[in-house]
Structure formats: C-alpha cells, structure tokens
C-alpha cells in the first residue's frame, strides 16, 4: 500500500478530477486545492467513500470574500480531515457575486448544517438544497450580510462617540 500523504492524495484527486482542479498548493503542510464549485459534491463523496483516504470528518466550513477578484468574489472553504490517516485537506471553491450559489454538503455531513447557515448569514452565499437556510447568529430582520467587506464593523447608531478625538 502506498504511503497515504499529501502526494498520494493529490495524485488520487488528479486521476479522478483532472479537469476540475483549478490549482493545487501546499501552504504550511496542508494540501490546498481550488476546485470547480459545481463538482463539490462529487469530490466530497469521492473522498468520503474512498477506501483508503476515508476523509469522513468535516473539520470546518467557512466563507471568504475577495471583492476585487472579478467573477470569483465569494469563496467557500472546506477543511476535511481523515481521522484514520491523520491527513488534512483544504478545498476552496469560488463563485461570482451575482450568483453566489453552491450546493450544500449537509447530505454528507450533518455538521455542515449550521456552518452553512452561518456562512449564509455572514456572506449571503446560498447553499442550494440546504434544508433550512435561515440566518443563525444575527437578527432575522437584518437586511445585509455583515461580514462582506463593504459593510462597516461599527455600530452606526452610536451617539456617544466624538470622532474629533479619534482622528476619524
């Protein structure tokens, strides 16, 4: 049996998804691939069911925004972990800002449910097929997606701040 490491993992992925891997990299020892967002389910279920890799643990799911990356403004980042082989993989999928949609992975990982809701809450990324895509942390009446870079951090209703002292 071959050593199960980043090289083997990448080779397996390239064999299967040659055309869909946009780029692959290994920052700080974790294999990172940028992947076609339409094939994410195929990729994850391939990794899940792979007899050797057994990437069956979704460590983390989060969103990211690059406002200047035209056509690829929004991203979703998956961190997978194979507990048997102690191997981690990071997958990034990018999507344009007028159609921030990606299919949900709740079918494979129950843990993705709230993490996707959180990502939706923060960035407005739509996870198609999600059983219950609502805001989770913010109030339901909120009409914007606060983590997007164009929205300010500070509370705009604050009255007790005199900006002249802060050079703002």
């Amino acid at each position, binding site marked *: 049996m071959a050593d199960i490491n980043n090289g083997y993992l990448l080779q397996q992925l390239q064999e299967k998804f040659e055309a869909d891997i946009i780029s692959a990299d290994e920052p700080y020892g974790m294999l990172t691939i940028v992947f076609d967002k339409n094939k994410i389910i195929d990729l994850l279920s391939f990794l899940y069911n792979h007899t050797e890799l057994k990437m069956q643990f979704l460590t983390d799911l989060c969103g990211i925004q690059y406002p200047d990356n035209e056509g690829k403004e929004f991203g979703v980042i998956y961190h997978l972990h194979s507990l048997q082989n102690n191997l981690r993989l990071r997958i990034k999928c990018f999507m344009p800002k007028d159609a921030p949609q990606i299919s949900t992975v709740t079918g494979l990982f129950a843990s993705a449910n709230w993490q996707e809701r959180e990502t939706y809450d923060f960035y407005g990324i739509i996870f198609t097929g999600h059983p219950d895509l609502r805001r989770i942390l913010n109030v339901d009446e909120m009409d914007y997606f606060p983590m997007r870079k164009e929205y300010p*951090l500070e*509370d705009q209703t604050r009255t007790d701040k005199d900006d002249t002292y802060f050079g703002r």
Partner: protein
Amino acid sequence: MSNIQISPPPAGIEGQGFFATKIEEAIGLARANSIWPLPFATSCCGIEFMATMASNYDLARFGSERISFSPRQADLLMVTGTISKKMGPVLRQVYLQMAEPRWVIAVGACASSGGIFDTYSVLQGIDKVIPVDVYVPGCPPRPEQIIEGVMKIQELVKTESLRRRTSPEYKALMASYGIE
C-alpha cells in the same frame, strides 16, 4: 464566638420599651439586607458572577442568599455580560416582568457601554433599553468589585424614599424608556 454583626438601627427616638423611627427607614433597612438578585448572566462576566456566588466570595453574606431565577420575585436585576441586539428585547421583557421597586446593576464593560465590542451586533450599553442604577466597570470585574456594586445598591435601597416610585421624575424617567 460568632462574629455576626447586627446592622445599626436607623435614627429614631428610643425609650423604655419603645423605639420610634420613620417607617421609610425601617423598610429601607429591611429591603437593603434582603435583596433577591436575578442574575442575567450571558457571557464571560457571568462566570465571574458564579465565582461571586460561590464559596470563596459568597454574596450571601450581604443578604443576597437567595438567587431568584424568576423575574417576578426578584428585586435586583444583575446584567452580567454582553447584551446583543437580539437579546435587547428579551432583557427589556425581563425588566418589565419585575415588580416595583426594582433595581438594575450593569456588571462589566459590555453591559455598561458595549465594552470592546463596538460592533453591529452588540447593544452599546444596556441603558439604551432599561434604566440602570449602578455600573460596575471591568472586563470582567473582579468578584470584589461586583460585591461593591451590590453594596452600592444596598446604599441606594436604604436611602430611597418610599414615594420615589410614584414621583413625576420617576415617571418621566420610565416614559423616556417607553415604559408605562
């Protein structure tokens, strides 16, 4: 030997077999030493509040032995922790359910002013939704500080006039928060 201290009686006229004082002061004395706090513990400060209640610091020494988890039987609302905008209405609701006379103490920087969280989701101080009597600074305040805050409340309770809650000033204050 026990070192229990009996709190000094209010000023009054004493004679053989009788003691005359103002009812206001007698009531104030009784109230101040039997405050039932309602801990509205949301986050980190709540843990310090737990420490205050627990064996080492023991808030019970100040007459607040019984924590009332129901707002209807509580005298003192202790808001310990961050109050987000989502939580604001709940806090207000709890305050409204408390019976008069009621006091409020804001424990920690978050409850007092929003603290380090000057963000879109955090209420910038609970005095935006309910009136506050005592603010305790700190992030989190040490248990000693929380106890001091409670003692300040005791002071207020002791000296409060019985008519205060029906006075026009008080009504105006409530009205400014939209509370009838």
